[in-house]
């Protein structure tokens, strides 16, 4: 372990401005993708169940 303090860790030897945005944007993009897909899946399911209900098919 080469970090003596949290500040040193965040500074990344002076490269913090480059390192953290890279990791941050990557994490944000990945989380955002998962959230969007879960919403899309839920929407598709609701739309489907509504159309089935309106068609009068018993589930």
């Amino acid at each position, binding site marked *: 372990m080469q970090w003596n303090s949290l500040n040193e860790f965040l500074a990344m030897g002076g490269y913090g401005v480059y*390192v953290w945005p890279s990791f941050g944007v990557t994490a944000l993009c990945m989380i955002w993708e998962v959230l969007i897909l879960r919403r899309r899946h839920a929407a598709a399911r609701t739309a489907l169940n509504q159309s089935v209900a309106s068609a009068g098919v018993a589930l």
Partner: protein
Amino acid sequence: MKTDRMNWFQWSSPQAFYPLAGKLIPWFACVSMVCLAAGLYMGFLVAPTDFQQGDSYRIIFVHVPAAWMSMFLYVVMAGWAAVGLGLKARPSFMMAQAIAPTGALFTFLALFTGAFWGKPTWGAWWVWDARLTSELILLFQYAGVMLLHASIDDLRRADRASAVLALVGVVNVPIIYFSVRWWNTLHQGASISVTAAPKMAATMLAAMGIMALGFWMYSAAVTLLRVRCIILERERHASWVQIERVS
């Protein structure tokens, strides 16, 4: 021969695929999260500081896996496209369609993190290096495949046309890589030589490999999630969707 194919079709029907994908997603997601956590731990806390680049090199723990995934996913997408064209199997096209956005996302991330690595390393956000340029073209090609699919109303035609385009792209990317490398040797001196890979410690390599595995599993989970959305959206009139309660 004929009956074999019929069975294969039944097995690979969206109806069978939908619950299968649903069962697989949690596994991929778990493995992915474990790998990403372990990779970040190794990358930030175990791997030593690089004596040449300082700590800026740690960007490669996302950059290199993202770049690998962007290319790997393109090849996988083209593979599904080829299977779809060859066997006329709809789930293959759905898989190809589901992979494209994730591949494009990783391409974008590879470019973005590449820029943030390039600035402290080479002093420039962007260098006309063979790898960066091919990565950019790869992003254009992902965009082309997705836009072509989106602009054709008839789904069957959209599937097959974008599959042909994906296959053409697979041939194009290596040609571009080599042509840009060739082009770069001609303009030597204009940019810093970026082909020489820095010597890496074993822990660095291990962290990178684990991160790549994490990204891989993430892609699998996300792709399956997306393919489930696509199945529901496309098959909403099919009787199995109407009768079975979808979860």
